[in-house]
């Protein structure tokens, strides 16, 4: 791998040496460069091969996301389908993260279909980096990812995006979350991007948990329309949708939708926004209760940097710029519950590096 490629990929969580990784997947444009499981109980294949190997794979495709969505159609019309098939066998609890990278090296639209299947009582942590070669400023990324979490499973999916100013990104994702299962979905995007639009969906069964966190820094002309939707279908299931959003001349729309369907369910959506310079943030919570025994809430706050906090740090000897960037990176670095320390650190590191580069 060329040095500049490995540098770019490293920034979004890909380790070329695959240290402490349970698996590694790399897709460049429409080609799969690497698809490697390093762990027993974990299968990692190009989706095209998985379709040949397992009959049930093709039947599952696009049964969770909507086939009416034009972007879904666009991906399905790309033959052969290309992307990652990630399959964890029953009872395997894999703590080391699996890395999956989608790398755009041509000025085209990358089209990806990913499938994650977790058998009962399994555990997996995925770090997905999506990025573009440093010499490109334009491109597209359309991706579908569908997750099947059987009962008693735990899956964290941390997505770090680092795009270029004229890239359009339209991911579609949906998860079926089995009984007593936990799905943690994290999204980090801190660089200027023409347009990102997505709202992954979770269908949550009995005692299941869906947890979405988004960390967004919308610079320049960036336009982010992001969020999540959770359907609490099973008794005592719960969902949290949390967003930390900064706009600096960009536009951000944050949607958080929770639907309480079964008894004993709980849902919460929360958006914290910070406005620097111009730009806008629109927080749109949507709560729907279909039963009286459901507890749904939302919380949103949008404001500017607090002068009192800057002053406090200046009085401790920090110059104004250092004080600001410390507060900004603090604002973005929300603790994500249930996330392995390694991944939390990776998120914190990404924030710090990107901010340092930007300021």
């Amino acid at each position: 791998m060329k040095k500049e490629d490995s540098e770019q990929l490293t920034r979004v969580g890909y380790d070329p040496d695959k240290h402490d990784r349970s698996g590694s997947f790399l897709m460049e444009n429409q080609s799969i460069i690497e698809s490697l499981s390093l762990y027993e109980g974990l299968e990692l294949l190009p989706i095209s091969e998985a379709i040949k190997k397992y009959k049930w794979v093709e039947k599952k495709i696009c049964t969770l996301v909507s086939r009416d969505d034009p972007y879904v159609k666009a991906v399905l019309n790309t033959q052969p389908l290309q992307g990652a098939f990630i399959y964890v066998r029953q009872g395997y609890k894999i703590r080391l993260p699996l890395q999956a990278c989608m790398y755009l090296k041509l000025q085209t639209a990358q089209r990806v279909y990913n499938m994650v299947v977790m058998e009962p009582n399994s555990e997996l942590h995925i770090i997905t980096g999506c990025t573009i070669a440093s010499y490109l400023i334009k491109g597209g990324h359309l991706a579908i990812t569908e997750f099947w979490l059987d009962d008693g499973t735990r899956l964290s999916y941390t997505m770090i995006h680092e795009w270029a100013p004229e890239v359009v990104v339209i991911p579609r994702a949906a998860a079926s979350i089995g009984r007593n299962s936990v799905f943690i979905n994290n999204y980090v995007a801190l660089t200027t991007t023409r347009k990102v639009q997505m709202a992954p969906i979770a269908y949550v069964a009995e005692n299941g948990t869906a947890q979405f966190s988004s960390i967004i820094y919308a610079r320049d002309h960036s336009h982010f329309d992001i969020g999540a939707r959770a359907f609490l279908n099973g008794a005592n299931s719960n969902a949290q949708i949390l967003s930390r959003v900064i706009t600096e001349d960009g536009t951000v729309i944050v949607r958080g939708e929770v639907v309480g369907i079964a008894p004993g369910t709980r849902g919460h959506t929360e958006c914290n926004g910070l406005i620097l310079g111009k730009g806008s943030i629109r927080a749109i919570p949507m709560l729907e209760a279909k039963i009286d025994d459901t507890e749904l809430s939302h919380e949103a706050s949008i404001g500017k940097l607090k002068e009192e906090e800057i002053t406090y740090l200046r009085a401790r000897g920090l110059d104004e710029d250092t004080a600001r960037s410390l507060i900004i990176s603090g604002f973005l670095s929300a603790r994500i519950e249930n996330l392995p320390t390694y991944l939390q650190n990776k998120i914190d590191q990404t924030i710090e590096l990107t901010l340092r580069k930007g300021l």
Partner: protein
Amino acid sequence: MNVPLLKVDNLSVSIDGKQILKDINLEIPQGEVHILFGPNGSGKSTLLHAIMGLPGYEVRGKIYFHGTDITHMPPEQRARLGIGIAFQRPPIIRGVKLGKLLELINSNKPDIQRMAEELQLTPHLQRELHYGFSGGETKRVEILLLIAQKPDLLLLDEPESGVDLENIDLIANKLRHLLEKEKRISERHRSALIITHTGYILNYLNAAKGYVMVDGRIKCSGPPRDIWETIRKVGYSLCEECLLQRINEKRR
């Protein structure tokens, strides 16, 4: 060395055109601790903030530190010259870990670890600044940050308010150490201006001088213990007339 560490010369301070402090004069020589008393809202915190150079205050008069005119210096520059403040009500800063801030202030990591341990704040290093801290923890953290800064002049805004006795003991002993109270006067080089509502701090630090502020003015100054005794007996109600007079009468 005749130059006082801090000299406040005819200082008047307004906020949004409203005058808060009027003609304040005071001098703190190197190695001395001075105490500022006064009822709520009299302007004590405002004076400390003005000395620290916090924005939002319109200042007339002069402030000298080590003989240098610092009246119009930004706060970070004053901090680097050696002025440090422990805030009465510091802000919560979400996501900013105490340990991280300490590292930015003082790069000596083992030193920080040890100081945190001594103030029973080791677990707090990983926590967000002042977020969910108890009153006592907040005050200890302010002291820890000051210790990391090692300023020549300590501005302490009610360091013991809302703190239980055990923690007052901890805080005050740390301050005594920082102020080199175990050394001879001529060897001390740190000074402090301390606001107190409880007077406890007087039991730990040998303070040289006290002031009473009422309605933005320093009404009197004198031996801090005498002033405190009088305040405890009669409160600030008689300050308008002049506390000092009563103290002097008592002496006679």
